[in-house]
């Protein structure tokens, strides 16, 4: 092996090569360590903010599948929200990055951004703010803001600032086939633990939601603030439930609902839109009202801290929270909406309006449901969930 020979006039041998490489890596690491930490980054100062006409209009949006703006190629479910925005600005500037659960949403917002708009659920709002990922909205730029339900609007506030514009709310429970599951077995969350239906069950691959379900099943009073012992008990319970799952679903539309339609699974954690979709497919299904109570949730739009499309982002959100967009969304997915001007009489299926209390957003905080909330021991919970998955 050759150990001598100049490189740019200097001898290069293995030792020199390794030394140079180490110096390069050491320098890079040192530079990294000395560089600014990815701490909170303030949004562009209002005084320096360019007007709408000077913005590029290229919106990068962190979104759930099915919520894309009307007119974009990605919107295939018939949602009309976003139509007024795309009619004015076109669709070519909009890019979606998809999320499949709330934990992943926070992770992607942290690592894969910056995004102009994010659509997470409200329980992780403190994390988005403390990580410097979001900035408050200027609600005066959203004409329909005054029409939004005050209770939901308050849920989107932190430190007196409106970080989230609420849009959709609903429930989480077990959707099940009434022709396959005995009525006596479908009374509570323990249905997911029923060995009679092994291999026909599918829980969601969302860490915090699964721990909430386990906590409710075990009767813990604070499902989002588990003690160490309760966390371990919930983990053990999920480990016992795991073999009964056909799979933990990640995508509602491309994985869970097709499996439900095909009969691969009979019981699935879902939101109420799956009930509507499966009934439309002709399946006899029910959305369980567990004895321990359903989960409930509230999601909305957050404004990226480093957005360069401040005014476009406000226009985009206005195109979602206006009356017509909200009414159509509710009639499509049967989720609740934040726009208080949408009356129950505008919703086609009155039976669902009554059953899901769609006319009353404060129902998500009623005593018979459990509003998903911020978890102070998220890191331990996440690790425990990964141990359940890996076990």
């Amino acid at each position, binding site marked *: 092996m050759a150990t001598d020979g100049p490189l740019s006039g200097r001898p290069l041998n293995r030792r020199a090569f390794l030394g140079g490489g180490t110096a390069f890596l050491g320098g890079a690491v040192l530079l990294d360590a000395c560089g600014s930490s*990815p701490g*909170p980054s303030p949004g562009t100062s209002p005084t320096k903010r360019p007007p709408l006409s000077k913005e590029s209009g290229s919106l990068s949006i962190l979104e759930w599948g099915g919520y894309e703006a009307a007119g974009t190629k990605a919107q295939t479910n018939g949602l009309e929200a976003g139509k007024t925005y795309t009619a004015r600005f076109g669709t070519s500037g909009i890019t979606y990055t998809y999320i499949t659960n709330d934990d992943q949403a926070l992770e992607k917002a942290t690592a894969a951004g910056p995004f102009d708009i994010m659509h997470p659920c409200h329980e992780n709002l403190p994390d988005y703010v403390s990580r410097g990922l979001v900035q408050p909205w200027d609600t005066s730029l959203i004409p329909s803001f005054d029409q939004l339900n005050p209770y939901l609007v308050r849920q989107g506030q932190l430190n007196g600032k409106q970080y989230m514009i609420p849009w959709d709310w609903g429930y989480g429970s077990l959707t099940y086939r009434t022709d396959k599951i005995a009525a006596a077995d479908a009374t509570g969350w323990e249905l997911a633990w029923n060995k009679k239906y092994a*291999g026909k069950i599918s829980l969601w691959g969302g*860490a915090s939601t699964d721990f909430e379900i386990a906590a409710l099943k075990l009767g813990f009073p604070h499902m989002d603030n588990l003690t160490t012992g309760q966390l371990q008990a919930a983990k053990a319970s999920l480990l016992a439930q795991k073999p009964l799952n056909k799979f933990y679903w990640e995508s509602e539309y491309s994985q869970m609902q097709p499996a439900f339609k095909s009969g691969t699974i009979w019981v699935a954690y879902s939101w109420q839109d799956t009930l509507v979709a499966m009934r439309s497919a002709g399946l006899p299904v029910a959305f369980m009202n567990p004895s321990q109570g359903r989960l409930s949730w509230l999601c909305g739009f957050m404004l990226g801290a480093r957005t360069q499309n401040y005014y476009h982002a406000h226009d985009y959100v206005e195109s979602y929270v206006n009356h017509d967009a909200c009414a159509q969304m509710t009639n499509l997915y049967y989720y609740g909406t934040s726009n208080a001007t949408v009356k129950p009489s505008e919703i086609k299926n009155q039976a669902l309006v009554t059953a899901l209390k769609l006319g009353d957003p404060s129902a998500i905080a009623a005593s018979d449901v459990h509003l998903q909330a911020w978890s102070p021991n998220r890191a331990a919970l*996440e690790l425990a969930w990964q*141990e359940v*998955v*890996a076990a």
Partner: protein
Amino acid sequence: MCPARRTLSARRTLRARRALRASRARRTRDDHRTRSWPRPDQRALVLPPLLFVLVLLVLPVVFIALYSVGLRTNIPGTPTAFSLSGWQDFLFGGGSAFRGRFVYSIEIALIVSVATTLAAYPLAYFLAFVARRRRYALLLVLLAPFFTSYLLRVIAWQIILNNNGVVNSLLWALHLRPHGSAVSWLIYSNFSVALVLFYTWIPFVALPIFVVLENMDHRLPEAAADLGASRAATFWRVTLPLSLPGVIAGFVFVLIPTTGEFITPLLVGGPNNQLFGNSIQAFFGDTPDWNYGSVLAITLIVVVVVLTLAFGRFLQTDLRADARPQS
């Protein structure tokens, strides 16, 4: 065969082997000459690939290592400090679930690698020795599925193996199973994960074996036959040993990527069939704990490096066609 012809063949084989040795000796001398450092103006050519490796391979691994010992964090505002807690948990503590998943993944990777290699060998043998004039056309056919996306191919298997999929529908149509009663282990099982991985990697294993067999000195099996060896003996004592570099290369081509695989188990595996790669992906994609994910990632990197070093020493054979002895 008459004794005279056999003697003639043996002499011919002897000459061929001498020529082969002479050729290798020439190549070794040439290699010694050409392995000395090139002229100064050519040496700068090493810089782009060197930078490429340092920036895109070594540096990211260094950063992952820093995450694994707590010197970096992905959560803004979180203080960093050197800590081996992740390593202690994974190696000796409550991380037994991940250790178990690691062992399971290695088992699956080994099963898939062995099965794929065993299945690919006859395929490569057929292409090299039997197909002859049509071998490249058939090779193209073998590789044809790989002109489509990997993801689409795995999803296609979902359609085939699903409860309402092609296989179950066929069983129902043939009245081999009652209508609506699906074979449950076809999908979301060890079987489905192993099957899809097997399908995915077959061409990648067949290719190096085919190259070795194709470039093998075909006079050696002939000489063995001339010396009275049966076809089976010729295969076991001549063809197989000479093709081992290709076999090992193919085996490694499957084993190393399969140890870190996560797409296939994600799409066709059930909750009990996820591989180690899924845990790594989840820690980086779904949870805020890149530090623990880095511990798992570094573990996998170490295993892959060890495997590469272990098998690399068997891959020294020159596969080029011009390595053949000149007659």
